[in-house]
């Protein structure tokens, strides 16, 4: 097959728009942080939310990249370059992790356990300090990134070599790496979720939390991938490539992941609610109060019920224009869910003024400009399809459905 799948020049314009909107977000973020009167805390806390959101897409793309090699399905071939570009942003995310290390004291309660007045909590944090201390925390992050970047580079090199040589053994090699790679991915993502998010409340624990975050980044990245395929499908050359059957495939993965996420989420609630133990239930009690209660209901309805019901329809899944609206809803609700998980930990029962939550939005948009700039730079630098993949003909075949 020939390579006539160069990225459209138009993508540069979209990249510019992303960077421009991101810049506005950064400005709003800085203003919000300064105006808040508690600049250091607000900056690092909003930074963490934005960081967890964007690394979710990057890690999700890495996970899907391995899954599509393992599955060997046609839908993987047509989105592989998007997955490679998305996972390449892990380099950016590794650099952007530095501010979190700098701001540990402003984010995590366990960094200043000596100043905690509650004797019981102090004792508990003392007990956990072998694991939760700044040096080991940072060291673990280095290990996670080394593994993720290693996996990303290994798969990427094979894919790019395939473009040059057309050697089908490279696909086999990528598949061989993906099996054990996905296992290690699951473990490292679990540890990272416990370190970066669950340890915000170091007294609390939930054994399903890692899987919950993995399902969350899986559904977030799939919604992102669908959005990008829809953008590409409106332009040459991909307008000749993407067909209803491709959107149908991606549209089936989206509700599958929505259900997995809902299943994990509900399991966590059911087990903790049934047990009703003093070391577990406060996490939910905190989130059943005030604005968090309504946000929680919105998450059930708009993150699960509505997308699930809409995505039951075969016609909707095959219609790119409608599918992308559901994908956007899911992306927004992933952000809302992260806010619901993370932000109550910064309030300690004193709900903030609603306008302060806008800073989280500004931070996420601001970091998003940089992230998307990197993503589109990667996407434009290569052919939009791995055109020498042995499955290309099958993936592009018209009509039938596998």
């Amino acid at each position, binding site marked *: 097959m020939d390579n006539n799948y160069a990225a459209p020049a138009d993508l540069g314009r979209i990249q510019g728009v992303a960077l421009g909107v991101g810049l506005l977000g950064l400005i709003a973020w800085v203003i919000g942080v300064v105006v808040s009167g508690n600049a250091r805390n607000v900056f690092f806390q909003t930074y963490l939310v934005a960081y967890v959101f964007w690394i979710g897409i990057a890690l999700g793309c890495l996970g899907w990249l391995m899954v599509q090699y393992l599955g060997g399905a046609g839908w993987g071939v047509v989105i592989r370059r998007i997955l490679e570009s998305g996972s390449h942003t892990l380099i950016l995310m590794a650099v952007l992790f530095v501010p979190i290390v700098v701001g540990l004291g402003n984010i995590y309660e366990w960094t200043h356990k000596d100043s905690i007045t509650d004797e019981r909590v102090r004792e508990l944090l003392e007990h956990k300090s072998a694991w939760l201390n700044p040096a080991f925390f940072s060291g673990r992050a280095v290990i996670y990134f080394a593994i993720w970047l290693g996996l990303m580079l290994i798969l990427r090199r094979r894919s790019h070599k395939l473009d040059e040589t057309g050697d089908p053994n490279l696909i086999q090699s990528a598949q061989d790496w993906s099996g054990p790679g996905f296992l290690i991915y699951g473990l490292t993502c679990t540890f990272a979720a416990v370190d970066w998010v669950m340890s915000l409340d170091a007294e609390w624990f939930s054994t399903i939390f890692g899987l919950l975050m993995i399902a969350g980044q899986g559904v977030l990245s799939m919604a992102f991938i669908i959005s990008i395929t829809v953008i590409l499908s409106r332009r040459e050359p991909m307008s000749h490539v993407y067909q209803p059957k491709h959107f149908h495939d991606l549209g089936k993965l989206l509700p599958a992941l929505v259900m997995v996420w809902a299943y994990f989420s*509900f399991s966590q*609630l*059911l087990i903790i*609610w*049934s047990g*009703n133990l003093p070391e577990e239930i406060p996490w939910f009690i905190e989130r059943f109060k005030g604005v968090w209660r309504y946000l929680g209901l919105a998450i059930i309805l708009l993150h699960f019920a509505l997308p699930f019901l809409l995505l*039951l329809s*075969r016609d909707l899944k095959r219609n790119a224009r409608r599918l992308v609206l559901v994908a956007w809803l899911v992306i927004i609700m992933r952000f809302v869910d992260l806010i619901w998980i993370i932000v109550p930990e910064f309030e300690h029962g004193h709900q903030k003024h609603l306008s302060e939550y806008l800073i989280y939005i500004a931070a996420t948009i601001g970091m998003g400009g940089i992230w998307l700039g990197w993503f589109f730079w990667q996407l434009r630098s290569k052919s939009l399809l791995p055109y020498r993949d042995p499955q290309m003909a099958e993936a592009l075949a018209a*009509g*039938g*459905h596998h």
Partner: protein
Amino acid sequence: MKAHSKNMTKQEESGIYGLMAEFDDPSAVVAAARRTYEAGYRRINAYSPYPIEELSAAIGYHKDLVSMTVFAFGILGALGGFALQYWTSAIDYPLNVGGRPLLSLPSFIPIIFECTVLLASFGAFIGMLAMNRLPQPYHPVFNLPSFSRASHDRFFLCVKADDPNYSEVETRAFLQGLGAKEVSDVES
């Protein structure tokens, strides 16, 4: 059968259910089905040992309502699962479990989910049977001895005698022109 009584008479009069064309290659039967549909035949059906999605599209079959029965039964299951638990644990035999309210939705949800799945699969099973008009102890296509290979290694295309365009001679010639290995009458 759903056919009009007038057509039934036509079928009954001739004693012929339709013409069955036999193919030994899946792409041949798809191509033949497509051309038969294009030629204006609508009372047609195709048989294959395994599902071929193009074949359904080729005979003009696009949508079935099984998904709707699954959905309706699923809703019924969810409501039933809720009603069952609400009645047993809040009305008929109220039980205080750890001071929780009698209507405790989180604990109801696993059973609601199970009932939804159970009834939805019943919906799929019943809907599939009903829309295929099964069980059907007698069907004329089995009068053709070679038809037993439809579940083995042969592909069949049938034009029924009640099709308005059906004509004993012309339809047979048409089907033979499509590359069928054999075209046979099916007695009704």
